[in-house]
Structures are given as C-alpha cells and as structure tokens.
C-alpha cells in the first residue's frame, strides 16, 4: 500500500488548487513516499483530454500529470460516480487510470493514514 493518498476534487484551471495538490504529490514522491491519487468531484475534469490552458494564459495540470510516471506515481484512481454525474466516460479521459466505485474509494481513505484532500 502506498504511503500517501491525495484526493483531487477541484477543476484544473480556474483556481490554483489542482496545481498545488499535484505539487504536493510530486514533492511527496521526491521524499520517497509512495503516492496514490484519487480524482473525484470536479477533480475528474483534470483528466479530460486536449486541455489548452494557454488559451487563457493559464498553465493547467496536464504537463504535470504527464510527469507522474517519472516520479513512479502510477496508482491513479477516478470515481465512477463523479464521472457519470458529469456525463463523462473513461474513454474521454487523457490519462490511464482505474475506475473505482464508492466501496473502493472508502477503502482507499481507510487504509491510508496520510490523506491530503484538495
């Protein structure tokens, strides 16, 4: 089991929350902590393909997301319920990630002592 669980609940562009949460994941990995990421709520929008944040002079999170494998972060989960509430399906996402339901989500929170929830 990984050491850190980081929950992403904010959209990627309108605020700095998503970027700051990803920074934390990367720094955690640099500190030798195994990190798992969960995308739920509006956080699932971070996974959409073809984001062009430069259209509004923002940086977004896609470039950082692409760096995750370099940090050995490969446990990436997305809430099935959050996706379907937003009319999205897994094939619209630009990242390889594992769909999880409520039970698996609850288990992830329960089995990690360190949870950072953004």
């Amino acid at each position, binding site marked *: 089991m990984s050491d850190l669980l980081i929950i992403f609940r904010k959209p990627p562009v309108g605020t700095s929350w998503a970027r700051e949460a990803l920074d934390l994941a990367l720094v955690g990995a640099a500190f030798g902590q195994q990190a798992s990421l969960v995308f739920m709520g509006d956080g699932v929008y971070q996974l959409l393909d073809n984001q062009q944040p430069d259209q*509004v002079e*923002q940086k977004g999170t896609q470039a950082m997301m692409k760096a995750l494998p370099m940090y050995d972060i490969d446990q990436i989960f997305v809430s099935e319920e959050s996706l379907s509430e937003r009319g999205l399906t897994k094939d619209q996402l630009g990242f390889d990630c594992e769909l999880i339901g409520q039970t698996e989500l609850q288990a992830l929170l329960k089995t990690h002592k360190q949870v950072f929830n953004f």
Partner: protein
Amino acid sequence: MNYSIAIYGGPYSDQSAHSALHFARAVLKREHSIQRVFFYHDGVYNSSALVSPPQDEANVPAQWQELAKEHDIELVVCIAAAVRRGLLDEKEAKRYSKATHNLADGFTLSGLGQLIDAGMTCDRLITFGA
C-alpha cells in the same frame, strides 16, 4: 462606451484577474475606453509590488500596470480591504508604523466610494468575482 472593471480575486489563487485582463484588452480593441479597475476583497493582492512568479508564468500585477499606463486607466485598490490584508502604500505604512510598504507603482489606495462612483458614472461596470 466607458467601462469600469471590478476584480475580487487574488493572482495565482484564481483566474479572475487574468479573465479581467483578457476582457479589458477586448474592450479596448472594440474602441471603448476603460476608466477604472477597482480591486476589492482578495483582488487587492493584485497590487503587490513583491509578486514574483516563475519566469514561465504571467506577472499579473505587471500586466495591469502596463495596460493602465498605455491606456490611461485608473488602478484603484480598496484601502480598507488592502491594509488588513497587508497591502500598504508609503502613507499607510507610516500610519501603521510599518518599516516598509509594498503597493506597486501605478496602483492607488482609495475608498470603496470609487467603486460606487464607477457604477454611477460609467456606462458599464463588469465584475470578475473570486
């Protein structure tokens, strides 16, 4: 037409000051004028001279300064919202016995009446909330 703009969000924390900047450029492109940009709530953080973004990110306060200079736009920061958040000009720094001040050039601390005035006197007041 004569526009004014109100900004309630801080730089980097949210997009409002950037959106307002894009909007302002489009307003000017359509040959309207912009009288005043009023910074309120966390928008006051846009007036800091100390904002130091990484090289590959936009410096929002600097962009407002440039645009204001080029197009003669007033950049007015709500004084009550600013001083309690730690944005001071030289005069306020003296009043509160602070050793230094950090309001960027081109920004002016003034009362909330300047926002009311913008609403009364301009053709359009557009708000970018946080």
